[in-house]
């Protein structure tokens, strides 16, 4: 006990000179007048976030701002906190963060706000009081609508379809399925959802489930996967059953994990937001927040090359998800 309190005070004493030093760099950093934006991914080795960064760099270049890109090498919430604390000390103007751990990072982001840094989140939100805006890549309705609209178009708005989900209790997936069901009831009376099967986020289980669905529902026209491992899993089942093209596969996933099946014509379309645009928008929003052109309560945001985007509450919406198809999938490498 004694020993630990001694260590504590020692740590505090050691930290004092550093706090002083940090203050100095902060004032020094603000002088050159260039906006400094820090961009935090969940993991900087992940191709998804590397693609985000590409968009962020484009936005920073457009704005004449300096972009700092740093994040954990692998998904690591503690490391995210450390990096944010570092940015607070060195005095950046804006932080755009994708949160690995909502509660965990929120504390650090609140500290950043207290230090006068503008905070936006993208991809994965923090608690609402820890940031000004969340750059929302897709709403539940947006994803559900895009998946069903694509599937419906492929099968002529008529016939049976089935859904592969992660598991029956996954909140995200259930919200998307609900959106699909609502859309179907409103817009596609001739479509019929025959079954929803969980794949436990396993590609192989998705394949087995799809094999069974194809056998049990001979009139099945399309399979929609609302979890990313389910898309190639469903595609492999359709391919092995010799039903390529006859049964359409649509799902939410990454282009790189589906490229082969899309090119073979087994999977017709993979839905995802344009990841590069997400990074671009996060930086644009952060900068606008810093120069005062974006204020709480706004209903619209002018996002440069992305045009005018809708703001719902404190969410800036990236817009309709993008469909990767045979024609365009080669241009994407994440």
């Amino acid at each position, binding site marked *: 006990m004694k020993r630990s309190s001694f260590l504590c005070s020692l740590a505090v004493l050691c930290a004092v000179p550093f706090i002083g030093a940090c203050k100095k760099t902060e004032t020094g950093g603000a002088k050159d007048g260039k906006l400094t934006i820090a961009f935090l991914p969940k993991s900087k080795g992940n191709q998804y976030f590397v693609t985000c960064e590409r968009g962020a760099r484009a936005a920073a270049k457009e704005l004449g701002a300096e972009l700092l890109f740093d994040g954990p090498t692998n*998904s690591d919430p503690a490391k995210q906190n450390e990096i944010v604390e570092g940015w607070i000390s060195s005095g950046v103007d804006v932080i755009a963060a994708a949160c690995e751990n909502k509660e965990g990072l929120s504390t650090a982001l609140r500290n950043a706000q207290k230090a006068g840094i503008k905070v936006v989140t993208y991809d994965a939100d923090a608690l609402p009081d820890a940031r000004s805006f969340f750059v929302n890549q897709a709403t539940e309705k947006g994803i559900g609508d895009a998946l069903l609209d694509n599937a419906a178009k492929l099968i002529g708005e008529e016939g049976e379809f089935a859904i592969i989900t992660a598991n029956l209790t996954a909140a995200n997936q259930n919200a998307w399925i609900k959106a699909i069901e609502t859309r179907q009831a409103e817009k596609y009376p001739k479509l019929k959802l025959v079954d929803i099967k969980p794949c436990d986020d396993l590609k192989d289980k998705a394949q087995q489930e799809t094999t069974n669905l194809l056998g049990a529902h001979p009139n099945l026209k399309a399979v929609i996967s609302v979890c990313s491992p389910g898309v*190639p899993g469903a595609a492999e089942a359709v391919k092995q059953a010799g039903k390529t093209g006859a049964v359409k596969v649509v799902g939410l996933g990454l282009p790189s994990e589906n490229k082969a099946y899309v090119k073979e014509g087994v999977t017709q379309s993979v839905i995802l937001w344009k990841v590069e645009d997400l990074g671009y928008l996060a930086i644009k929003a952060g900068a606008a927040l810093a120069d005062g052109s974006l204020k709480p309560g706004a209903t619209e945001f002018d996002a440069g090359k992305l045009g005018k985007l809708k703001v719902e509450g404190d969410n800036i919406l990236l817009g309709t998800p993008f469909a990767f198809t045979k024609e365009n999938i080669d241009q994407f490498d994440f």
Partner: protein
Amino acid sequence: MMRKYSREIIVAIALILLMLALAAYAPAYFDPQPLLSRFTSQAPALVAAIGITLVIIIRQIDISIGAQFSMCAVVAGVAAAAGMPLPVAVLAAVLTGAVMGAFNGLLVAWLGLPSIVVTLATMVTWNEALRLWQQGRLMNLPAGIQWFGLSQSAGQGIVIGLSVVLLIAFAWGMRNLALGRYVYATGTDAEAARLAGINPRWMTFGVFVLTGALAGLAAVLNMVQSPQVQPNAGDGLELKVIAAAVVGGVAITGGRGNLWGVLLGLLLLVNVNPALTYFHQPPYWERAIQGLVILLAVVADGLQRGKKVKHA
């Protein structure tokens, strides 16, 4: 005879009843293509189940088998993606599995640590290592890996054929080879086995190594079924194969059980889910029914043991 194989007979009857119900109400279940696909996709689980059966007979447990499977799949995938020929990838996977098994075996056999704790620790370790290494992303394999570079039906034939050959070989060996009998003897009473000249430590170690190697082989048989490797492909495999062994009559207290029972147990458990799909029932029932089957098996085990004690 009837008494000795009572469990196997009960499971076989349950399986036959399920098949009859399917034949009556959903004959499409027996269409050749989906049937063949179903068998092929469960073949790797059968290979892993051989290993877990040996482990349970020798009175240990290995819950890291799913993690070993994932690790071996990734190692084989990385080797294949680096352009190495398939046999090298297969060897790498089997060796990786054997090394992981040896690690479990060392800790259990020589340090005398409980296998449930050791393999829980290695399970978490391998899984987390994979998460850090692969970030959960699917790995795309080069052409020529899927179905061993052959046609789909030839590939499926090899996968099923290899698993069945392994099953027959191990079932025969466990009954007819001295080593097989030693596994039973060690599982029944390690001290008695030692006095009879068997080295229980080496037996236990060997069984863990073999189980790891079989997990590696299973991972390869799974990898060749698609052009991609998922780094957590073995998630939940441990539950599946342990359940198959228990349902198939392998005593969780060691010393008793045979591989044909395990085959029946696996067939019964893995047919529950497709049967529900073909009966157009919601998937909510899958886990509940599988759980009930396992529970019945354990209760039957308990009753059987109780009877034996009374007789003695």
